[in-house]
């Protein structure tokens, strides 16, 4: 065990993967000698050489195009997109290529050994081009897996699983926790299952669901609610695609209430999919409408960041409204 922050946990996972797989390569903008703008790839070039950890030209569509080719050749391609806000130039390569590679070839070729890492989310005074949470776009793309960790321990285990998984994985890192989240992390290799939610805290009155940096927000709201005698079950979804309907359903069967929190705008955000599925699966158990506490339907604003964010207070209020329904 070692104390690591989220960045160190990721760096550590990358080192272990590169040691294990001689064909594992890490690349992206500034990831080489510099170690990435957030330093997640620090020392990889020094350790594994310039041919296995390298800067690319500044072209996200090129990075993912290259990564698709490299993965289809059989290598472990680990690509970094510097900010999730800049993943959109690569949207075609991801949606039309990465995700459909295996299906269209009847399983002859695939990008299964591709992992795309990208920092996402707000809370860092980054405005609308350094704060977006685009997970919902990718949740609508069959063939991809989408994974988001909430702390260093999850980050390392889930990233190692993502790299090992024989499917392309988009691994989104909550950048406001990069240095803020610190915890005990085993130094050796370990994996955490993809597609499985994590019940962070059990409770009986209402289920609170989030992922990434918002998990601590719902935990905080849960503490507030407990003071009012409301028992909250807190779940970290962890995998956005495929997601763990089973665990969420089990919880809602018990609590009868569900609140989902995410940073992205409400309309078409991933909470909509969860709400649509759960109202279907748990219809007769629901005692109140499923609540969504999310960003506004606007670009992510700078000056009004605090007001935009689905914080613990908004969550707490929504818990109250749901309980009082």
């Amino acid at each position, binding site marked *: 065990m070692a104390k690591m922050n989220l960045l160190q946990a990721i760096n550590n996972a990358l080192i272990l993967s590169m040691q294990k797989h001689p*064909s594992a*390569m890490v690349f992206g903008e500034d990831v080489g000698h510099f170690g990435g703008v957030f330093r997640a790839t620090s020392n990889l070039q020094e350790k594994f050489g310039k*041919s*296995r950890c*390298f800067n*690319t*030209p500044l*072209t996200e*569509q*090129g990075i*993912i*195009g*290259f*990564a*698709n*080719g*490299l*993965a*289809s*050749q*059989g*290598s472990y*391609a680990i690509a970094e997109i510097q900010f999730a806000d800049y993943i959109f*130039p690569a949207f*075609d*390569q991801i949606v*039309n*290529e990465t995700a*459909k590679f*295996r*299906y*269209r*070839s*009847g*399983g*002859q*070729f*695939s990008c*299964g050994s591709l992992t795309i890492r990208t920092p996402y989310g707000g809370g860092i005074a980054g405005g609308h081009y350094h704060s977006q949470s685009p997970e919902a776009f990718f949740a609508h793309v*069959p*063939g991809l*897996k989408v994974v988001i960790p909430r702390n260093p321990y999850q980050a390392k285990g889930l990233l190692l699983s993502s790299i090992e998984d*024989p*499917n392309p994985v988009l691994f989104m890192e909550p950048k406001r926790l990069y240095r803020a989240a610190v915890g005990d992390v085993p130094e050796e290799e370990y994996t955490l299952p993809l*597609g499985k939610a994590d019940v962070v805290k059990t409770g009986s009155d209402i289920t609170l669901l989030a992922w990434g940096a918002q998990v601590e927000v719902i935990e905080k709201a849960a503490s507030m609610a407990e003071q009012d005698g409301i028992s909250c079950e807190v779940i970290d979804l962890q995998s956005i695609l*495929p997601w763990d*309907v*089973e665990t969420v359903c089990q919880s809602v069967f018990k609590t009868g209430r569900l609140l989902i929190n995410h940073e992205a705008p409400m309309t078409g955000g991933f909470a909509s999919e969860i709400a649509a599925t759960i109202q279907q699966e748990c219809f007769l158990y629901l005692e109140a409408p499923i609540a969504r506490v999310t960003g506004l339907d606007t670009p992510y604003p700078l000056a009004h960041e605090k007001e935009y964010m689905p914080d613990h207070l908004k969550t707490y209020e929504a818990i109250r409204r749901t309980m009082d329904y």
Partner: protein
Amino acid sequence: MQNRNHLSNVKISHNVSVIENGLLEIPMLQLLNEQGVEINPKKVKFFDRDTAQKILNSMHYTRLLDDRMIGAQRQGRISFYLASLGEEAATVASAAALEPQDMIMSQYREQGALVYRGYTTQQFMNQMFSNKDDPNKGRQMPIHYGDKALNFMTVSSPLGTQIPQAAGYAYGQKMAGQSAITICFFGEGAASEGDFHAGLNMAAVLNCPCVFFCRNNGYAISTPADEQFAGDGIASRGIGYGVKTIRVDGNDVLAVYSATAQARKIALEENCPVLVEAMTYRLSAHSTSDDPSGYRSKEEEQKWAERDPIVRFETWMQEKNWLDKEALEAYKTKTREEILAALKVAEKISICEIDEIINDVYDTPPWHLEKQLKELKSHIKKYPEAYPKTAGSNK
């Protein structure tokens, strides 16, 4: 190569000199003139008679296949087809200059390369009839071939996407220590996509052993080359990327072969990309959904019909006494029959059973796909007449 650093070795001038594209002339390699006469003074031996024969046969095969499939489409037997009439030299002779271990990424009009690699008639037909023997499992439109065993990447419709992929694939081959390159075919239209830029630049910077083979055939559907770019073709872009570049007469088998062989050699030995621009012409319609009479003249087509790459090559073979006309006729007859027979077989083979609808989305279907399949299957059981192609195999 010039020093890559952003300022060293730069020449200084003291007057505003505007660089125009006219400054650079990129010649086109031709080894057989329009009459099929060899004009390389050195009389290099390119390939042996067997290879020549295989190239010629593959070109004929491609044309016969195209011809038959356009017919089949008109008869409503397949939904779509896309011919390569006039471009057979570009696709067949380039494939001939490669090694079997080289990966071919094609755009879609490179059936000639696939023929040369040995894709069987039945494989072609199974793909086009989307039947259950198609290795793509009938998931893609006709002409989206692919065969891992032949190192031929499955065709993908979105244009240009293969170009950066080729760089990545080649990088992987290099890292794995293979003596192999990746060739990526694309049209001059696809070269307008951002992915072209990304792919060439990355390949150059990251020293990827690949050949970017552009078929500049004058049109992208209805859009003529002069509404596609304003520079001197695609070759002139190579300079900007620091990529070695060869322009070649795409209707000249010898030239295409030589250029590709040379490109492959450079790519492999120097670990770098090479851009080849083959100047040719899409004599056919863009596809069976297209009618070129709306956007180009019969005269223009006629001019190019006279530059037939097969005729040119046959003239050369004849000159070398390598052309056995009788054998060729026999080959063509046999091929025609073979195509017809395979077509008849393929159209009778059923499509994949319904379970395949969820396979290969992931390595194994996650629970939500299993659930969707289960619901679908019980629905089909309820309405078998509505889903006649799968009701039979629905268990």
